[in-house]
C-alpha cells in the first residue's frame, strides 16, 4: 500500500490537492494519522502535508480575540505567554494533554479535525466559545463554532476539501473565570474517563451572568449540557444550586461502556466533576 505525498506552500494549493476527494487526507502533526494508518484503518490515495503553510502557523493577540493558527502545536499553546495572558485555563488545559512528546508534535487544527470526543482541546475550546476558521475550494471561507463542529465519533461538519486554518478564541469578559478538569483513574497520560471545562462570569452581586460547560469522553462528540447552563444563569451558585446543575448533567451525557468505566459510572462522574469544576470557579 502506498499513497501520493505532496507539500503545498499555499492554502489554495493545499485545497486544490485535496480536490474534495474523500481518499485525500490533510496531514498536520500526524499523531492521529499515523495511528489510524498503522492500524490499517485508513488507506488514503493522497496525503497533503501542511507543514510548509506559513499562514497556518503562529499565535497572536488580536482585537477580536486570541488567534491560534491551525498548525500551532499543543506545546506551543501550553507555553505561549500570549495564550496565558488571554486565557490561562487554555494554557493549563493544553499542558495536561498526553505527554510532552505528543504535545510537541500534535496540532490544534489536526486535533479538531480528528474529532475524537475523548481528547482535551475540543472541550476547553468549546467552553471558551472558540470559533474555527475554515478555508474551502474556490477561495471560500467560513466559520464554525467549536461546539457545532462535531457531528459523530471522528466526524465533523467539514466537507472533503475543506481545511481548518485557525481558531479564534473571543476575549473573556471581565470577571470571567474558567477551568479544565479531567478525571484520570488510570495514568496521567491516558484519555480521560470524563473531562470538564467550565467558564463562568458572576455579576456584581454574585449571581451568575454567563456560564458555559463542556464535557469530553461521555458521548460520540464533546457535549454542552445546555439545560444545566441555563439553570445557572441568574442564580446564586450555592451548594444546592450546584447540586441541581450537576444532576442535570447526568441526563445530558451519553457515554459508552469501555475500559475507562461503564456508561453508568461515567454518567455519575460527569456530574461529580462538573460540580467540582464549578466550585473551582465560583468559590
Amino acid at each position, binding site marked *: 500500500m502506498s499513497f501520493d505525498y505532496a507539500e503545498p506552500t499555499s492554502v489554495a494549493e493545499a485545497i486544490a490537492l485535496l480536490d474534495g476527494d*474523500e481518499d485525500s487526507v490533510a496531514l498536520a502533526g500526524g499523531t492521529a494519522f499515523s495511528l489510524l494508518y498503522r492500524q490499517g*484503518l485508513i*488507506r488514503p490515495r493522497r496525503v497533503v502535508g501542511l507543514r510548509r503553510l506559513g499562514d497556518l502557523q503562529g499565535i497572536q493577540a488580536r482585537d477580536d480575540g486570541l488567534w491560534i493558527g491551525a498548525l500551532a502545536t499543543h506545546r506551543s499553546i501550553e507555553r505561549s505567554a500570549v495564550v496565558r495572558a488571554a486565557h490561562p485555563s487554555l494554557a493549563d488545559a493544553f499542558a495536561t494533554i498526553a505527554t510532552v512528546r505528543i504535545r510537541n508534535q500534535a496540532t490544534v487544527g489536526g486535533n479538531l479535525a480528528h474529532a475524537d470526543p475523548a481528547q482535551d482541546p475540543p472541550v476547553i475550546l468549546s467552553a471558551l466559545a472558540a470559533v474555527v476558521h475554515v478555508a474551502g475550494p474556490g477561495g471560500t471561507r467560513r466559520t464554525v463554532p467549536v461546539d457545532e463542529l462535531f457531528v*459523530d*465519533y471522528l466526524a465533523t461538519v467539514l466537507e472533503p476539501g475543506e481545511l481548518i486554518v485557525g481558531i479564534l478564541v473571543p476575549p473573556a469578559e471581565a470577571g470571567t473565570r474558567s477551568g479544565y478538569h479531567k478525571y484520570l483513574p488510570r495514568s496521567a497520560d491516558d484519555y480521560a474517563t470524563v473531562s470538564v471545562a467550565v467558564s463562568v462570569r458572576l455579576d456584581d452581586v454574585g449571581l451568575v451572568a454567563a456560564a458555559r460547560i463542556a464535557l469530553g469522553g461521555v458521548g460520540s462528540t464533546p457535549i454542552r449540557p445546555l439545560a444545566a447552563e441555563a439553570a445557572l444563569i441568574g442564580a446564586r451558585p450555592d451548594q444546592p444550586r450546584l447540586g441541581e446543575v450537576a444532576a442535570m448533567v447526568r441526563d445530558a451525557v451519553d457515554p459508552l461502556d469501555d475500559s475507562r468505566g461503564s456508561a453508568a459510572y461515567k454518567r455519575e462522574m460527569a456530574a461529580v466533576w462538573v460540580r467540582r469544576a464549578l466550585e473551582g470557579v465560583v468559590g
Partner: protein
Amino acid sequence: MKLEHRIVVRAPRGPVWDSLMDLPEVALCVPGVEALTPHGDDRYEGHLRVGVGPIRLNLGGELELVSRDDEAGRAVLRGNGTDARLGGGVRVLLTLSVAELDGGRTQLTIESDVQVLGRIGELGQPIMKRKADDLMRAFADCLSQRLQ
C-alpha cells in the same frame, strides 16, 4: 460480540413480518446497503458501506436465510462480509423475531452475534456497538415509514 436491539414498528405484526421476509427490499432500509440480490435458494449477495469518520468500510459478501418460522414469527440469518481494501471482515448470525403489541404496533427483536475479523477489529467494541445502535435506529424508522 452479542448485541440485542428491540425496536417498535408502528404497524401490525402481519405486514411487519411479510416486509421483513422480503429481504432484498427490507435490506434497503439498512443505511449503507446498496442492493441485495438473490443468488440461489435463500442466498443473497450484497454490499454494506459503513463509515466511522475517515474510516470507511465496504463489506461485500453473502446473506443466507438459515431458517424461517412464519407462525412463530422467527427467522435466523447468517451473513459474512469482507473488506478487500482494509483487510478483515465481519461474520454475523442474526435472529429476528416479531411480537404483537397493543395499538397496532409490533416489537421487532434483533439478536446479533457478531465476529469481527482482522483490522476492522481495531475500531474497538464500544464504537462498533454504537454504530450498530445507529444502524438499527435508522432501520426501525425506515421500516415504520414504509409500513404506514
